[in-house]
């Protein structure tokens, strides 16, 4: 069989299997991300289909997956929303960083992965999955709830932190000196500030630049702009993903809505490839030794996220049940934990076991998150009932 034919067959088989896995995920009401990771684990390491022939394609496609993930995340927010979100939630946001990055960083240090490994694992356990959480909130009919804006503004804060964190991480992964690192951080801070100000004041010009009434022209312009900006950002060591995120923020209004509609299927396709490639690069044999750590991290960071949400919701005057819902809603980790781990692995600057730990952790959290969000209310009610029956006799006597 000639080379092209073989590549097409392989690629087709991969997409088809992913489609089947996605359908399975939708049927049992969970996020497809863990299944894509499992799919990647199966394809790699002498799995069903060796992907040697389409390696170059999947590599580029997974890069595009990250760019599109972040671009669409940026498109969801307007600069004004980011600023108000920041103002409203910065205290909860700081607590969020401290509580949730610490366990990951601590485990990395215990396992001897050094400061860079600690920064990576801290990011992996810190960042909630806005994709999974937004979907769960919609599915459970909680958009009208009073604690929901609290949850969303924490997510906004996290996404902004990502815009700062990724360039810093990239600089450290490349292994630059302290001075070089500071320079990279300075550049990225300046770029982010400029982009946010431009987006706030001149967002419509950026939108007008990429806008077009013709679907085809519009798609090419948006995608072209995203890859150009991502590439340029990458050349400046600000991380391609952040470039795409900032472009997404600068595009606003109806242009952003149209772009979201048009790019969503592309993002789903390329992001799926990204998760598979991450799974491929992870050696399943390395998972069992770190599984204990993954479970320990899952338990601890579930509790710390619940605490974060509880505290943030209480500050907004939300009742106990709402606080519990806010906490449980934040538990899910997903795409961005993998983006961070993927970045670290691609630079080869961290222990290869880190990918295995991150995979196992995200597998657990992507399943645990939606489950916790769903079960928190019945569980809290059961607790309340137990509490009231236990206290009833004591008040009677």
């Amino acid at each position, binding site marked *: 069989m000639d080379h092209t034919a073989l590549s097409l067959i392989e690629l087709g088989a991969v997409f088809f299997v992913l489609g089947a896995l996605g359908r399975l995920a939708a049927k049992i009401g969970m996020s497809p991300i863990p299944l894509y990771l499992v799919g990647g684990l199966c394809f790699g390491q002498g799995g069903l289909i060796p992907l040697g022939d389409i390696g170059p394609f999947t590599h580029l496609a997974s890069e595009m997956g990250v760019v599109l993930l972040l671009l669409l995340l940026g498109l969801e927010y307007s600069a004004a929303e980011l600023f108000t979100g920041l103002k409203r939630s910065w205290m909860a946001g700081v607590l969020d960083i401290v509580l949730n990055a610490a366990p990951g960083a601590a485990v990395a240090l215990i396992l001897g992965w050094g400061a860079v490994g600690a920064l990576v694992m801290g990011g992996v356990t810190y960042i909630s999955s806005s994709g999974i959480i*937004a979907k769960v909130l919609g599915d459970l009919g*909680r*958009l009208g709830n009073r604690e929901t804006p609290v949850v969303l503004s924490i997510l906004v804060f996290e996404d902004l932190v990502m815009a700062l964190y990724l360039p810093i991480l990239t600089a450290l992964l490349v292994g630059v000196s302290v001075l070089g690192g500071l320079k990279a951080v300075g550049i990225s801070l300046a770029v982010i500030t400029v982009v946010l100000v431009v987006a706030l004041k001149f967002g419509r010009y950026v939108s007008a630049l990429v806008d077009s009434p013709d679907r085809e022209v519009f798609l090419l312009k948006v995608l072209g702009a995203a890859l150009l900006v991502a590439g340029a950002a990458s050349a400046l060591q600000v991380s391609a993903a952040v470039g795409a995120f900032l472009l997404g923020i600068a595009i606003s209004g109806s242009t952003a809505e149209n772009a979201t509609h048009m790019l969503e299927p592309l993002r789903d396709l390329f992001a799926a490839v990204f998760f598979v490639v991450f799974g491929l690069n992870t050696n399943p044999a390395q998972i069992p030794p770190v599984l204990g750590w993954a479970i320990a991290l899952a338990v601890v960071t579930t509790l710390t996220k619940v605490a974060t949400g509880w505290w943030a919701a209480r500050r907004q005057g*939300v009742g106990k049940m709402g606080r519990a819902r806010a906490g449980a809603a934040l538990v899910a980790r997903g795409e961005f934990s993998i983006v961070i781990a993927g970045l670290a692995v691609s630079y080869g600057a961290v222990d290869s076991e880190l990918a295995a730990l991150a995979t196992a952790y995200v597998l657990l959290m992507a399943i645990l998150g939606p489950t916790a969000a769903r079960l928190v209310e019945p569980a809290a009610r059961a607790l309340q009932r137990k509490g009231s029956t236990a206290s009833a006799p004591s008040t009677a006597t």
Partner: protein
Amino acid sequence: MNVEVTPLPGIGVRKDFAIRNGRRVGVVTHRDGQIELIVSKSDDPDACLASLPLSTDEAGALANLLGAPQLVAQLTEEHRDLPGINTKQLPIKNASPFDGRTLGDTGMRTRTGVSIVAVMRAGQVHPSPTPDFTFTSGDLLVAVGTSEGLEAAIKILKYG
């Protein structure tokens, strides 16, 4: 009515208000234009008992059932090109001196130059009410006039 507008970053906007029994009623407008009607629970005011997705048509139909805003918006639109003429909805409140009295008793046209063109009651529109039309609290009067006249009309309905 004190409508609370809460931005939901990445999703849309929530507009709701508390009704007399303490529950909240409102809508969540999604970015893509989808509308959800929300009603909060009575035992847990932070949570929603229902969040019903409505199409634009369904939301329009519901708004029509609930009455006045739709009609007023329509009349305002028709009067857009006539400067100085405004349409406003004026409530007959619980404490209003005209609860149980007639349109004639208000002397509205003589005193303010404002015309009452319709009365909305229980989702029904009563067009062109005659002077012997009897008001009851909860009625919404659709009034047309100058802005000064409408200001005066509000005061009359409140204080007599």
